[in-house]
């Protein structure tokens, strides 16, 4: 694996590590407003004295479905269709500004699910309800 390791691999390893640290409770995430939509939330955490923000948002993407021959053979037009997809992003903040964004990286939506579960303290809620007589 080392021979084909790239910076993408490093990003994948970073996200997997964040997931692991979240699951073990080593990273505390707090709920805040999403930078995209006021109706949605984002999760923020402080890691190694840097702030990171994790959120999901709806995004319109165009996908090429078929290729059409236009007037000449040299001008082939793509037929595309619009789709709304759910994207996940992790912002690395610097002085409150977005310095870098990991977007739709493999494992990012797993991290979001895990963070949402941990930050909402669902486990505590379930334990409290189940403990009631």
């Amino acid at each position, binding site marked *: 694996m080392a021979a084909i390791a790239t910076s993408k*691999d490093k990003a994948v*390893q970073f996200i*997997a590590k964040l997931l692991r640290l979240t*699951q073990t409770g080593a990273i505390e995430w707090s709920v805040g407003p999403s930078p995209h939509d006021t109706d949605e939330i984002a999760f923020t955490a402080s890691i190694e004295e840097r702030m990171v923000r994790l959120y999901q948002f709806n995004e319109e993407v165009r996908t*090429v479905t078929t290729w059409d021959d236009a007037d000449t053979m040299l001008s082939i037009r793509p037929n595309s269709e619009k789709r709304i997809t759910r994207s996940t992003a992790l912002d690395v903040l610097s002085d409150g500004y977005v310095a870098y964004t990991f977007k739709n990286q*493999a494992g990012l939506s797993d991290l979001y699910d895990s963070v949402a579960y941990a930050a909402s303290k669902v486990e505590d809620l379930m334990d409290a309800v189940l403990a009631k007589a």
Partner: protein
Amino acid sequence: MWWDLWGYLSPIADWASLPSLVVSGLALFEITRLRRHIIDRVRLPVLVASLRKHGKNFADHLKSYESPEGRQEFSLEIAKCETNLRLVRTKISRTGRQRADELLKLIKGYRASDATGDQTEAAWRIYTDLNGLLEELKNFVAEQRMGA
């Protein structure tokens, strides 16, 4: 006389049929290859989506990996993932295949020592490497969609 040539026609036809047999064979080979290529292009996005689902399930099972049930669910997921991984590896680029082979090796090692010792690190490595492969496949599937 011209009818004397009649006797030569049959061996000429016999010899002429040989190149046409070769051409037919090549055409059959190309058609089979094209058919396999088209089927692979259709099936690959479906298989990649199922690998993504396995990744999600791995993340869920890793949450409860400390318990025997969690470990058992992880092992079951690995078995399902291995099958899809074998199908995917025949349809992708050389770099992707290399990653898939590495991952299959990790899975084999995990399954071989499933009952012995702490396998937490190996389980996380499988999850991480699967995500690495998914990143590689993301570009490959996008290129295929664009007709590259």
